[in-house]
Protein backbone atom coordinates (compact mmCIF):
# COMPACT_ATOMS: atom_id res chain seq x y z
CA UNK A 1 0.00 0.00 0.00
CA UNK A 2 2.83 2.38 0.86
CA UNK A 3 4.90 1.85 -2.28
CA UNK A 4 2.18 2.55 -4.86
CA UNK A 5 1.17 5.75 -3.08
CA UNK A 6 4.76 6.99 -2.89
CA UNK A 7 5.27 6.05 -6.52
CA UNK A 8 2.05 7.80 -7.52
CA UNK A 9 3.06 10.96 -5.70
CA UNK A 10 6.55 10.93 -7.20
CA UNK A 11 5.14 10.52 -10.68
CA UNK A 12 2.51 13.21 -10.19
CA UNK A 13 5.12 15.69 -8.98
CA UNK A 14 7.47 14.72 -11.77
CA UNK A 15 4.77 15.42 -14.32
CA UNK A 16 3.53 18.62 -12.66
CA UNK A 17 6.89 20.36 -12.52
CA UNK A 18 7.57 19.52 -16.14
CA UNK A 19 4.32 20.54 -17.78
CA UNK A 20 4.65 24.04 -16.37
CA UNK A 21 5.67 27.39 -17.73
CA UNK A 22 8.89 27.44 -15.81
CA UNK A 23 11.90 26.52 -17.79
CA UNK A 24 15.17 26.16 -15.89
CA UNK A 25 17.10 26.24 -19.14
CA UNK A 26 15.94 29.74 -19.98
CA UNK A 27 16.54 30.93 -16.40
CA UNK A 28 20.02 29.44 -16.16
CA UNK A 29 21.05 30.58 -19.61
CA UNK A 30 19.98 34.13 -19.03
CA UNK A 31 18.63 36.56 -21.62
CA UNK A 32 21.86 36.72 -23.67
CA UNK A 33 22.34 32.98 -24.24
CA UNK A 34 22.08 31.51 -27.73
CA UNK A 35 20.67 28.22 -28.96
CA UNK A 36 23.93 26.32 -28.45
CA UNK A 37 24.18 27.33 -24.79
CA UNK A 38 20.58 26.33 -24.24
CA UNK A 39 21.24 22.94 -25.79
CA UNK A 40 24.30 22.40 -23.57
CA UNK A 41 22.40 23.33 -20.41
CA UNK A 42 19.49 21.16 -21.45
CA UNK A 43 21.83 18.23 -21.93
CA UNK A 44 23.52 18.86 -18.56
CA UNK A 45 20.18 18.78 -16.78
CA UNK A 46 19.13 15.71 -18.71
CA UNK A 47 16.05 17.49 -20.02
CA UNK A 48 16.72 16.58 -23.64
CA UNK A 49 15.68 12.97 -23.08
CA UNK A 50 12.09 11.73 -23.45
CA UNK A 51 9.83 12.17 -20.44
CA UNK A 52 9.66 8.56 -19.34
CA UNK A 53 13.41 8.08 -19.72
CA UNK A 54 13.91 11.05 -17.42
CA UNK A 55 11.51 9.55 -14.91
CA UNK A 56 13.31 6.20 -15.11
CA UNK A 57 16.69 7.82 -14.48
CA UNK A 58 15.23 9.76 -11.56
CA UNK A 59 13.75 6.63 -10.00
CA UNK A 60 17.02 4.76 -10.50
CA UNK A 61 18.94 7.49 -8.68
CA UNK A 62 16.27 7.72 -6.01
CA UNK A 63 16.62 4.06 -5.11
CA UNK A 64 20.33 4.70 -4.51
CA UNK A 65 19.51 7.63 -2.25
CA UNK A 66 20.43 10.27 -4.81
CA UNK A 67 17.81 13.01 -4.98
CA UNK A 68 19.62 15.03 -7.60
CA UNK A 69 20.96 18.54 -7.52
CA UNK A 70 19.17 21.84 -7.09
CA UNK A 71 19.96 24.02 -10.08
CA UNK A 72 19.26 27.06 -7.97
CA UNK A 73 21.97 26.55 -5.36
CA UNK A 74 23.94 23.71 -7.01
CA UNK A 75 23.69 21.84 -3.72
CA UNK A 76 22.70 18.24 -3.41
CA UNK A 77 18.99 18.07 -2.60
CA UNK A 78 19.57 15.34 -0.01
CA UNK A 79 22.05 17.58 1.87
CA UNK A 80 19.70 20.56 1.75
CA UNK A 81 16.90 18.47 3.19
CA UNK A 82 19.13 17.09 5.93
CA UNK A 83 20.20 20.60 6.90
CA UNK A 84 16.77 22.17 6.83
CA UNK A 85 14.43 19.49 8.10
CA UNK A 86 15.45 19.87 11.78
CA UNK A 87 14.46 23.56 11.76
CA UNK A 88 10.97 22.74 10.52
CA UNK A 89 10.61 19.80 12.86
CA UNK A 90 11.64 21.96 15.83
CA UNK A 91 8.81 24.37 15.06
CA UNK A 92 6.36 21.59 14.31
CA UNK A 93 7.06 19.39 17.32
CA UNK A 94 6.88 22.20 19.88
CA UNK A 95 3.68 23.55 18.31
CA UNK A 96 1.97 20.19 18.16
CA UNK A 97 2.95 19.41 21.76
CA UNK A 98 1.57 22.74 22.94
CA UNK A 99 -1.50 22.47 20.72
CA UNK A 100 -2.33 18.95 21.91
CA UNK A 101 -1.66 19.77 25.56
CA UNK A 102 -4.15 22.62 25.35
CA UNK A 103 -6.55 21.23 22.76
CA UNK A 104 -7.26 17.78 24.20
CA UNK A 105 -8.20 18.92 27.73
CA UNK A 106 -10.30 21.76 26.33
CA UNK A 107 -12.13 19.36 24.02
CA UNK A 108 -12.74 16.91 26.86
CA UNK A 109 -13.99 19.65 29.13
CA UNK A 110 -16.34 20.97 26.40
CA UNK A 111 -17.87 17.53 26.03
CA UNK A 112 -18.64 17.42 29.76
CA UNK A 113 -21.39 19.94 29.34
CA UNK A 114 -22.34 20.35 25.68
CA UNK A 115 -23.66 23.83 24.88
CA UNK A 116 -22.56 25.12 28.26
CA UNK A 117 -20.68 28.40 28.46
CA UNK A 118 -17.26 26.74 28.30
CA UNK A 119 -18.33 24.73 25.27
CA UNK A 120 -19.72 27.75 23.44
CA UNK A 121 -16.55 29.74 23.99
CA UNK A 122 -14.21 26.92 23.05
CA UNK A 123 -16.25 26.13 19.94
CA UNK A 124 -15.99 29.71 18.82
CA UNK A 125 -12.25 29.85 19.51
CA UNK A 126 -11.76 26.64 17.58
CA UNK A 127 -13.80 27.96 14.64
CA UNK A 128 -11.69 31.09 14.69
CA UNK A 129 -8.55 28.96 14.59
CA UNK A 130 -10.02 27.19 11.56
CA UNK A 131 -10.75 30.42 9.77
CA UNK A 132 -7.75 32.61 10.45
CA UNK A 133 -4.96 32.56 7.85
CA UNK A 134 -1.62 31.64 9.45
CA UNK A 135 0.37 34.27 7.62
CA UNK A 136 -2.02 37.09 8.49
CA UNK A 137 -2.14 36.37 12.21
CA UNK A 138 1.66 36.02 12.12
CA UNK A 139 2.03 39.46 10.54
CA UNK A 140 -0.36 41.00 13.03
CA UNK A 141 1.39 39.49 16.03
CA UNK A 142 4.74 40.63 14.73
CA UNK A 143 3.30 44.11 14.62
CA UNK A 144 1.92 43.89 18.15
CA UNK A 145 4.67 41.95 19.93
CA UNK A 146 7.71 43.15 18.02
CA UNK A 147 6.86 46.63 16.77
CA UNK A 148 4.56 47.92 19.50
CA UNK A 149 5.47 46.07 22.68
CA UNK A 150 9.07 45.05 21.86
CA UNK A 151 8.51 41.73 23.64
CA UNK A 152 9.47 39.52 20.73
CA UNK A 153 12.82 39.58 18.93
CA UNK A 154 12.87 40.58 15.25
CA UNK A 155 11.39 37.82 13.09
CA UNK A 156 14.71 36.94 11.50
CA UNK A 157 15.43 33.26 11.86
CA UNK A 158 16.19 30.91 14.69
CA UNK A 159 18.82 32.83 16.69
CA UNK A 160 19.70 36.47 17.26
CA UNK A 161 22.71 37.77 15.34
CA UNK A 162 25.05 37.59 18.33
CA UNK A 163 24.55 33.86 18.97
CA UNK A 164 26.19 30.95 17.21
CA UNK A 165 24.39 27.68 16.54
CA UNK A 166 25.07 25.04 19.22
CA UNK A 167 26.68 21.70 18.34
CA UNK A 168 24.32 19.51 16.39
CA UNK A 169 22.80 16.84 18.64
CA UNK A 170 19.04 16.69 18.08
CA UNK A 171 18.76 19.44 15.48
CA UNK A 172 16.72 21.73 17.72
CA UNK A 173 18.78 24.80 18.62
CA UNK A 174 16.94 25.16 21.90
CA UNK A 175 17.31 21.57 23.10
CA UNK A 176 20.91 21.33 21.88
CA UNK A 177 22.03 24.45 23.69
CA UNK A 178 20.29 23.35 26.88
CA UNK A 179 22.00 19.97 26.65
CA UNK A 180 25.41 21.59 26.20
CA UNK A 181 24.69 24.07 28.98
CA UNK A 182 24.92 27.12 26.74
CA UNK A 183 22.28 29.23 28.45
CA UNK A 184 22.58 32.46 26.46
CA UNK A 185 22.07 30.60 23.19
CA UNK A 186 19.22 28.61 24.71
CA UNK A 187 17.55 31.83 25.80
CA UNK A 188 17.93 33.35 22.35
CA UNK A 189 16.58 30.23 20.63
CA UNK A 190 13.63 30.16 23.02
CA UNK A 191 12.90 33.82 22.33
CA UNK A 192 12.85 33.22 18.58
CA UNK A 193 10.69 30.10 18.99
CA UNK A 194 8.02 31.53 21.29
CA UNK A 195 5.92 33.60 18.90
CA UNK A 196 5.81 31.20 15.93
CA UNK A 197 5.17 28.22 18.22
CA UNK A 198 2.27 29.92 20.00
CA UNK A 199 0.76 31.04 16.69
CA UNK A 200 1.09 27.67 15.07
CA UNK A 201 -0.28 25.88 18.10
CA UNK A 202 -3.51 27.88 17.72
CA UNK A 203 -3.84 26.54 14.19
CA UNK A 204 -2.99 23.05 15.45
CA UNK A 205 -5.33 23.15 18.44
CA UNK A 206 -8.49 24.22 16.56
CA UNK A 207 -9.22 20.89 14.86
CA UNK A 208 -7.99 18.98 17.93
CA UNK A 209 -10.57 20.73 20.12
CA UNK A 210 -13.35 20.03 17.63
CA UNK A 211 -12.55 16.36 17.20
CA UNK A 212 -11.75 15.63 20.83
CA UNK A 213 -15.15 17.06 21.71
CA UNK A 214 -16.96 14.96 19.11
CA UNK A 215 -15.11 11.76 20.01
CA UNK A 216 -15.62 12.28 23.70
CA UNK A 217 -19.34 13.02 23.23
CA UNK A 218 -19.71 9.80 21.32
CA UNK A 219 -17.96 7.79 24.03
CA UNK A 220 -19.94 9.46 26.82
CA UNK A 221 -23.20 8.54 25.07
CA UNK A 222 -22.26 4.86 24.79
CA UNK A 223 -23.89 2.11 26.78
CA UNK A 224 -20.93 1.16 28.92
CA UNK A 225 -20.53 4.70 30.21
CA UNK A 226 -24.23 4.84 31.01
CA UNK A 227 -23.83 1.54 32.84
CA UNK A 228 -20.86 2.82 34.77
CA UNK A 229 -22.91 5.84 35.75
CA UNK A 230 -25.89 3.70 36.72
CA UNK A 231 -23.64 1.69 38.96
CA UNK A 232 -23.08 4.84 40.93
CA UNK A 233 -19.40 5.31 40.16
CA UNK A 234 -18.02 8.71 40.98
CA UNK A 235 -18.04 11.16 38.01
CA UNK A 236 -14.24 11.21 38.11
CA UNK A 237 -14.05 7.46 37.75
CA UNK A 238 -16.61 7.50 34.96
CA UNK A 239 -14.56 10.09 33.15
CA UNK A 240 -11.43 7.99 33.51
CA UNK A 241 -13.21 4.93 32.17
CA UNK A 242 -14.54 6.93 29.24
CA UNK A 243 -11.18 8.53 28.49
CA UNK A 244 -9.57 5.15 28.11
CA UNK A 245 -11.70 4.51 25.03
CA UNK A 246 -11.46 8.03 23.64
CA UNK A 247 -7.67 8.18 23.68
CA UNK A 248 -7.05 6.02 20.61
CA UNK A 249 -9.26 7.93 18.16
CA UNK A 250 -7.90 11.22 19.52
CA UNK A 251 -4.31 10.09 18.97
CA UNK A 252 -5.18 8.86 15.49
CA UNK A 253 -6.69 12.20 14.67
CA UNK A 254 -3.66 14.16 15.87
CA UNK A 255 -1.49 11.89 13.75
CA UNK A 256 -3.52 12.49 10.60
CA UNK A 257 -3.43 16.19 11.29
CA UNK A 258 0.35 16.09 11.65
CA UNK A 259 0.79 14.86 8.10
CA UNK A 260 -0.57 18.08 6.64
CA UNK A 261 1.14 20.37 9.12
CA UNK A 262 4.68 19.93 7.83
CA UNK A 263 3.47 21.66 4.66
CA UNK A 264 1.33 24.21 6.49
CA UNK A 265 4.25 25.35 8.62
CA UNK A 266 6.02 26.63 5.50
CA UNK A 267 4.01 29.88 5.48
CA UNK A 268 5.06 30.62 9.03
CA UNK A 269 8.66 29.83 8.14
CA UNK A 270 8.43 32.27 5.27
CA UNK A 271 7.29 35.11 7.52
CA UNK A 272 9.71 34.39 10.36
CA UNK A 273 12.59 33.76 7.91
CA UNK A 274 13.03 30.41 9.64
CA UNK A 275 15.17 28.84 6.94
CA UNK A 276 13.47 25.48 7.31
CA UNK A 277 12.38 22.88 4.83
CA UNK A 278 9.02 24.51 4.14
CA UNK A 279 10.48 27.87 3.19
CA UNK A 280 12.96 26.15 0.93
CA UNK A 281 10.22 24.03 -0.62
CA UNK A 282 7.99 27.02 -1.31
CA UNK A 283 10.84 28.83 -3.02
CA UNK A 284 11.66 25.76 -5.04
CA UNK A 285 8.08 25.53 -6.28
CA UNK A 286 8.00 29.22 -7.16
CA UNK A 287 11.29 29.03 -9.06
CA UNK A 288 10.54 25.73 -10.77
CA UNK A 289 13.60 24.05 -9.23
CA UNK A 290 12.67 20.55 -10.41
CA UNK A 291 14.89 18.37 -8.23
CA UNK A 292 14.21 20.43 -5.12
CA UNK A 293 10.42 20.37 -5.57
CA UNK A 294 10.64 16.66 -6.17
CA UNK A 295 12.67 16.16 -3.00
CA UNK A 296 10.41 18.39 -0.92
CA UNK A 297 7.23 16.60 -1.93
CA UNK A 298 8.90 13.25 -1.38
CA UNK A 299 9.91 14.23 2.16
CA UNK A 300 6.32 15.30 2.87
CA UNK A 301 5.01 12.00 1.56
CA UNK A 302 7.53 9.88 3.46
CA UNK A 303 6.80 11.89 6.58
CA UNK A 304 3.09 11.13 6.40
CA UNK A 305 3.75 7.47 5.71
CA UNK A 306 6.09 7.33 8.71
CA UNK A 307 3.46 8.99 10.89
CA UNK A 308 0.87 6.42 9.85
CA UNK A 309 3.21 3.55 10.67
CA UNK A 310 4.04 4.99 14.10
CA UNK A 311 0.33 5.54 14.69
CA UNK A 312 -0.51 1.94 13.83
CA UNK A 313 2.11 0.74 16.29
CA UNK A 314 0.86 3.09 19.01
CA UNK A 315 -2.71 1.92 18.54
CA UNK A 316 -1.48 -1.64 18.79
CA UNK A 317 0.13 -0.82 22.13
CA UNK A 318 -2.80 1.12 23.55
CA UNK A 319 -5.70 -0.88 22.28
CA UNK A 320 -6.03 -4.45 23.52
CA UNK A 321 -8.69 -5.11 20.88
CA UNK A 322 -6.40 -4.25 17.98
CA UNK A 323 -4.41 -7.04 16.39
CA UNK A 324 -1.78 -7.12 13.67
CA UNK A 325 -4.22 -8.77 11.29
CA UNK A 326 -7.09 -6.48 10.48
Amino acid at each position, binding site marked *: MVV*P*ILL*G*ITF*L*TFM*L*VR*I*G*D*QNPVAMLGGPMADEVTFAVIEKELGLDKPFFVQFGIYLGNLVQGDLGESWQSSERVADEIRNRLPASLELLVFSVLLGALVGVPVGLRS*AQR*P*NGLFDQVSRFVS*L*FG*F*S*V*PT*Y*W*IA*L*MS*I*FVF*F*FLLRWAP*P*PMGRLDIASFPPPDLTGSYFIDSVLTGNWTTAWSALGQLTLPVILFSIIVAAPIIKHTR*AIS*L*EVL*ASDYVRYARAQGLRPRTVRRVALRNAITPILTFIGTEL*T*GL*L*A*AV*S*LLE*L*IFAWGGLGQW*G*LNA*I*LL*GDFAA*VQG*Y*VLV*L*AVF*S*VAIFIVLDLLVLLLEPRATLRP
Partner: protein
Amino acid sequence: MTDTSIDRSAAVGFTTSGRILGIARRSPTFAIGFAIVTAFAFVAIFADLISPYGAIETFSRQVLQPPGVEFFFGADGNGMDVFSRVMYGARYAFGIAVPAATLMLLIGVPLGLVAGYKGGVLDEVVLRIMDVLRSFPSIVLALAVVSATGQSLINVILVIGFLDAPIFARLVRSEVLALRSSGFIESAVAAGNPTWRILFVHLMPNAIRGSTAMIAVRMAWAVRISATLAFIGVGIQAPTPEWGAMIRQGAEFVISGEWWVALFPGAALVGIVLGFNLLGDGLQDLLDPRRKATGK
Protein backbone atom coordinates in the same frame (compact mmCIF):
# COMPACT_ATOMS: atom_id res chain seq x y z
CA MET B 1 -36.53 24.63 28.19
CA THR B 2 -35.68 23.02 24.88
CA ASP B 3 -39.22 21.66 24.60
CA THR B 4 -40.91 25.02 24.78
CA SER B 5 -38.61 26.54 22.22
CA ILE B 6 -39.38 23.77 19.76
CA ASP B 7 -43.12 24.21 20.35
CA ARG B 8 -42.94 27.91 19.76
CA SER B 9 -40.89 27.60 16.62
CA ALA B 10 -43.45 25.12 15.33
CA ALA B 11 -46.25 27.52 16.18
CA VAL B 12 -44.72 30.47 14.38
CA GLY B 13 -43.70 28.22 11.50
CA PHE B 14 -46.66 29.15 9.31
CA THR B 15 -45.44 32.51 8.07
CA THR B 16 -42.18 33.04 6.20
CA SER B 17 -40.71 35.27 8.88
CA GLY B 18 -41.82 32.74 11.45
CA ARG B 19 -40.01 29.99 9.62
CA ILE B 20 -36.84 32.03 9.49
CA LEU B 21 -37.13 32.63 13.22
CA GLY B 22 -37.65 28.92 13.73
CA ILE B 23 -34.50 28.01 11.85
CA ALA B 24 -32.57 30.70 13.69
CA ARG B 25 -33.72 29.25 16.97
CA ARG B 26 -32.93 25.68 16.08
CA SER B 27 -29.45 26.59 14.94
CA PRO B 28 -28.10 30.02 15.89
CA THR B 29 -24.82 28.94 14.30
CA PHE B 30 -26.53 28.69 10.93
CA ALA B 31 -28.27 32.03 11.38
CA ILE B 32 -25.07 33.88 12.24
CA GLY B 33 -23.16 32.24 9.39
CA PHE B 34 -25.95 33.02 6.96
CA ALA B 35 -26.06 36.64 8.08
CA ILE B 36 -22.30 37.07 7.66
CA VAL B 37 -22.22 35.49 4.20
CA THR B 38 -25.25 37.52 3.06
CA ALA B 39 -23.62 40.73 4.27
CA PHE B 40 -20.46 39.96 2.30
CA ALA B 41 -22.54 39.05 -0.75
CA PHE B 42 -24.33 42.37 -0.48
CA VAL B 43 -21.01 44.22 -0.38
CA ALA B 44 -19.72 42.19 -3.33
CA ILE B 45 -22.77 42.95 -5.50
CA PHE B 46 -23.00 46.64 -4.70
CA ALA B 47 -19.29 47.41 -4.35
CA ASP B 48 -19.58 49.90 -7.23
CA LEU B 49 -22.26 51.89 -5.48
CA ILE B 50 -21.19 51.85 -1.85
CA SER B 51 -17.40 52.07 -2.01
CA PRO B 52 -16.18 55.64 -1.65
CA TYR B 53 -13.38 55.32 -4.23
CA GLY B 54 -12.44 53.03 -7.10
CA ALA B 55 -10.52 49.81 -6.47
CA ILE B 56 -7.35 51.00 -8.20
CA GLU B 57 -7.86 54.72 -7.91
CA THR B 58 -4.57 56.23 -6.70
CA PHE B 59 -4.01 59.29 -4.56
CA SER B 60 -0.30 59.87 -4.89
CA ARG B 61 -0.12 62.44 -2.10
CA GLN B 62 -1.84 60.22 0.45
CA VAL B 63 0.49 57.21 0.20
CA LEU B 64 0.34 55.21 3.46
CA GLN B 65 -1.99 57.68 5.12
CA PRO B 66 -3.30 56.17 8.38
CA PRO B 67 -7.00 55.39 8.81
CA GLY B 68 -9.10 58.51 9.28
CA VAL B 69 -12.08 60.41 7.97
CA GLU B 70 -10.81 60.56 4.42
CA PHE B 71 -9.78 56.91 4.15
CA PHE B 72 -11.60 54.77 6.72
CA PHE B 73 -9.06 51.95 6.53
CA GLY B 74 -6.14 54.14 5.49
CA ALA B 75 -4.28 54.18 2.20
CA ASP B 76 -1.81 51.60 0.96
CA GLY B 77 1.69 51.94 -0.49
CA ASN B 78 0.31 52.96 -3.88
CA GLY B 79 -2.01 55.53 -2.36
CA MET B 80 -5.10 53.42 -2.95
CA ASP B 81 -8.00 53.41 -0.50
CA VAL B 82 -7.87 50.20 1.54
CA PHE B 83 -11.57 50.43 2.50
CA SER B 84 -12.75 50.45 -1.11
CA ARG B 85 -10.31 47.73 -2.05
CA VAL B 86 -11.51 45.47 0.76
CA MET B 87 -15.06 45.95 -0.54
CA TYR B 88 -14.09 45.05 -4.09
CA GLY B 89 -12.15 42.09 -2.67
CA ALA B 90 -15.46 40.46 -1.70
CA ARG B 91 -16.14 40.08 -5.43
CA TYR B 92 -13.02 37.98 -5.84
CA ALA B 93 -13.88 35.85 -2.81
CA PHE B 94 -17.30 34.95 -4.23
CA GLY B 95 -16.01 34.98 -7.78
CA ILE B 96 -13.65 32.17 -6.80
CA ALA B 97 -15.71 30.28 -4.23
CA VAL B 98 -18.94 29.99 -6.23
CA PRO B 99 -17.53 28.75 -9.56
CA ALA B 100 -15.03 26.51 -7.73
CA ALA B 101 -17.84 24.93 -5.68
CA THR B 102 -19.92 24.45 -8.83
CA LEU B 103 -16.99 22.75 -10.50
CA MET B 104 -16.41 20.49 -7.48
CA LEU B 105 -20.02 19.34 -7.66
CA LEU B 106 -20.09 19.01 -11.46
CA ILE B 107 -17.10 16.67 -11.34
CA GLY B 108 -17.48 15.02 -7.96
CA VAL B 109 -21.18 14.16 -7.91
CA PRO B 110 -21.45 12.25 -11.24
CA LEU B 111 -18.17 10.48 -10.45
CA GLY B 112 -19.44 9.40 -7.05
CA LEU B 113 -22.82 8.35 -8.46
CA VAL B 114 -21.32 6.18 -11.18
CA ALA B 115 -18.56 4.77 -8.99
CA GLY B 116 -20.98 3.84 -6.23
CA TYR B 117 -23.67 2.44 -8.52
CA LYS B 118 -21.53 0.52 -10.96
CA GLY B 119 -18.70 -0.51 -8.64
CA GLY B 120 -15.95 -2.61 -10.16
CA VAL B 121 -12.84 -1.24 -11.86
CA LEU B 122 -14.12 2.32 -12.11
CA ASP B 123 -14.84 2.43 -8.39
CA GLU B 124 -11.37 1.08 -7.65
CA VAL B 125 -9.68 3.66 -9.90
CA VAL B 126 -11.64 6.55 -8.38
CA LEU B 127 -10.76 5.37 -4.88
CA ARG B 128 -7.04 5.09 -5.63
CA ILE B 129 -6.89 8.53 -7.23
CA MET B 130 -8.58 9.93 -4.14
CA ASP B 131 -6.00 8.21 -1.93
CA VAL B 132 -3.10 9.82 -3.78
CA LEU B 133 -4.73 13.25 -3.78
CA ARG B 134 -5.53 12.95 -0.09
CA SER B 135 -1.98 12.10 0.94
CA PHE B 136 -0.77 15.23 -0.85
CA PRO B 137 -0.88 18.38 1.30
CA SER B 138 -3.43 20.50 -0.54
CA ILE B 139 -1.47 23.73 -0.31
CA VAL B 140 1.60 22.21 -1.95
CA LEU B 141 -0.44 20.63 -4.72
CA ALA B 142 -2.38 23.83 -5.36
CA LEU B 143 0.81 25.85 -5.37
CA ALA B 144 2.57 23.46 -7.72
CA VAL B 145 -0.33 23.26 -10.15
CA VAL B 146 -1.03 26.98 -10.25
CA SER B 147 2.60 27.93 -10.67
CA ALA B 148 2.92 25.27 -13.35
CA THR B 149 -0.20 26.04 -15.34
CA GLY B 150 0.17 29.76 -15.36
CA GLN B 151 -1.14 32.47 -13.15
CA SER B 152 -4.69 33.51 -13.80
CA LEU B 153 -8.00 33.63 -12.00
CA ILE B 154 -9.42 30.84 -14.18
CA ASN B 155 -6.54 28.52 -13.32
CA VAL B 156 -6.95 29.14 -9.59
CA ILE B 157 -10.65 28.25 -9.87
CA LEU B 158 -9.96 25.15 -11.94
CA VAL B 159 -7.29 23.88 -9.57
CA ILE B 160 -9.45 24.38 -6.48
CA GLY B 161 -12.42 22.73 -8.19
CA PHE B 162 -10.44 19.70 -9.31
CA LEU B 163 -8.65 19.29 -5.97
CA ASP B 164 -11.90 19.20 -4.02
CA ALA B 165 -13.97 17.12 -6.41
CA PRO B 166 -12.78 13.82 -4.83
CA ILE B 167 -14.25 14.87 -1.47
CA PHE B 168 -17.73 15.06 -3.00
CA ALA B 169 -17.17 11.94 -5.06
CA ARG B 170 -16.40 10.08 -1.84
CA LEU B 171 -19.38 11.48 0.04
CA VAL B 172 -21.85 10.75 -2.75
CA ARG B 173 -20.34 7.33 -3.37
CA SER B 174 -20.87 6.20 0.21
CA GLU B 175 -24.48 7.45 0.14
CA VAL B 176 -25.11 5.59 -3.12
CA LEU B 177 -23.69 2.39 -1.65
CA ALA B 178 -26.21 2.63 1.16
CA LEU B 179 -29.12 3.46 -1.17
CA ARG B 180 -28.29 1.09 -4.00
CA SER B 181 -30.18 -1.91 -2.69
CA SER B 182 -33.13 -0.01 -1.26
CA GLY B 183 -36.69 -0.64 -2.42
CA PHE B 184 -37.26 2.47 -4.49
CA ILE B 185 -34.16 1.87 -6.59
CA GLU B 186 -35.08 -1.76 -7.15
CA SER B 187 -38.55 -0.77 -8.29
CA ALA B 188 -37.09 1.93 -10.52
CA VAL B 189 -34.91 -0.69 -12.16
CA ALA B 190 -37.84 -3.09 -12.44
CA ALA B 191 -39.95 -0.37 -14.07
CA GLY B 192 -37.38 -0.24 -16.85
CA ASN B 193 -35.76 3.13 -16.20
CA PRO B 194 -32.51 3.71 -18.06
CA THR B 195 -29.38 3.87 -15.89
CA TRP B 196 -28.82 7.59 -16.38
CA ARG B 197 -32.36 8.24 -15.16
CA ILE B 198 -31.87 6.10 -12.08
CA LEU B 199 -28.59 7.86 -11.34
CA PHE B 200 -29.63 11.45 -11.84
CA VAL B 201 -33.36 11.40 -11.13
CA HIS B 202 -33.70 8.79 -8.43
CA LEU B 203 -30.33 8.54 -6.70
CA MET B 204 -28.91 12.04 -6.96
CA PRO B 205 -31.52 13.95 -4.93
CA ASN B 206 -31.12 11.45 -2.11
CA ALA B 207 -27.37 11.09 -2.28
CA ILE B 208 -26.53 14.78 -2.43
CA ARG B 209 -28.16 15.70 0.87
CA GLY B 210 -25.14 14.77 2.94
CA SER B 211 -22.92 17.01 0.85
CA THR B 212 -24.84 20.23 1.49
CA ALA B 213 -22.97 21.22 4.62
CA MET B 214 -19.68 20.23 3.01
CA ILE B 215 -20.27 22.72 0.17
CA ALA B 216 -20.17 25.64 2.61
CA VAL B 217 -17.07 24.24 4.34
CA ARG B 218 -15.26 23.76 1.04
CA MET B 219 -16.22 27.26 -0.09
CA ALA B 220 -14.54 28.53 3.04
CA TRP B 221 -11.49 26.53 2.07
CA ALA B 222 -11.61 27.84 -1.51
CA VAL B 223 -11.57 31.45 -0.30
CA ARG B 224 -8.73 30.68 2.09
CA ILE B 225 -6.52 28.79 -0.31
CA SER B 226 -6.93 31.30 -3.13
CA ALA B 227 -5.95 34.08 -0.75
CA THR B 228 -2.97 32.03 0.44
CA LEU B 229 -1.82 31.52 -3.12
CA ALA B 230 -2.13 35.22 -3.84
CA PHE B 231 -0.23 35.98 -0.64
CA ILE B 232 2.66 33.76 -1.70
CA GLY B 233 2.62 35.58 -5.01
CA VAL B 234 1.07 32.91 -7.20
CA GLY B 235 -2.25 33.34 -8.94
CA ILE B 236 -3.88 36.73 -8.63
CA GLN B 237 -1.41 39.60 -8.61
CA ALA B 238 -1.47 43.12 -7.19
CA PRO B 239 -2.93 45.65 -7.81
CA THR B 240 -5.98 43.42 -8.21
CA PRO B 241 -8.02 44.04 -5.05
CA GLU B 242 -7.87 40.45 -3.85
CA TRP B 243 -7.47 40.08 -0.09
CA GLY B 244 -4.49 37.72 -0.16
CA ALA B 245 -2.66 39.93 -2.64
CA MET B 246 -3.45 42.96 -0.46
CA ILE B 247 -2.01 41.26 2.64
CA ARG B 248 1.10 40.53 0.58
CA GLN B 249 1.39 44.23 -0.24
CA GLY B 250 0.88 45.10 3.42
CA ALA B 251 3.41 42.57 4.73
CA GLU B 252 6.41 44.80 4.05
CA PHE B 253 4.84 47.70 5.94
CA VAL B 254 3.96 45.75 9.07
CA ILE B 255 7.49 45.77 10.40
CA SER B 256 7.72 49.55 10.02
CA GLY B 257 4.40 50.09 11.78
CA GLU B 258 1.92 50.68 8.92
CA TRP B 259 -0.46 47.99 10.10
CA TRP B 260 -3.63 49.00 8.28
CA VAL B 261 -2.61 47.83 4.81
CA ALA B 262 -2.48 44.18 5.94
CA LEU B 263 -4.95 44.22 8.84
CA PHE B 264 -8.21 45.04 7.07
CA PRO B 265 -8.10 42.64 4.11
CA GLY B 266 -7.09 39.90 6.55
CA ALA B 267 -9.97 40.73 8.87
CA ALA B 268 -12.39 40.56 5.94
CA LEU B 269 -10.90 37.22 4.97
CA VAL B 270 -11.33 35.86 8.51
CA GLY B 271 -14.89 37.17 8.51
CA ILE B 272 -16.05 35.51 5.33
CA VAL B 273 -14.27 32.22 6.06
CA LEU B 274 -15.77 32.19 9.55
CA GLY B 275 -19.17 32.90 7.98
CA PHE B 276 -18.94 29.99 5.57
CA ASN B 277 -17.69 27.67 8.32
CA LEU B 278 -20.51 28.65 10.66
CA LEU B 279 -22.95 28.13 7.80
CA GLY B 280 -21.55 24.65 7.24
CA ASP B 281 -21.66 23.77 10.94
CA GLY B 282 -25.23 25.01 11.21
CA LEU B 283 -26.38 23.17 8.11
CA GLN B 284 -24.90 20.00 9.52
CA ASP B 285 -26.90 20.48 12.70
CA LEU B 286 -30.11 21.22 10.82
CA LEU B 287 -29.83 18.41 8.28
CA ASP B 288 -28.39 15.62 10.38
CA PRO B 289 -30.82 14.64 13.11
CA ARG B 290 -28.50 11.87 14.28
CA ARG B 291 -25.75 14.24 15.28
CA LYS B 292 -28.32 16.29 17.13
CA ALA B 293 -29.45 13.26 19.07
CA THR B 294 -25.98 12.08 20.10
CA GLY B 295 -24.41 15.31 21.04
CA LYS B 296 -25.15 18.87 20.32
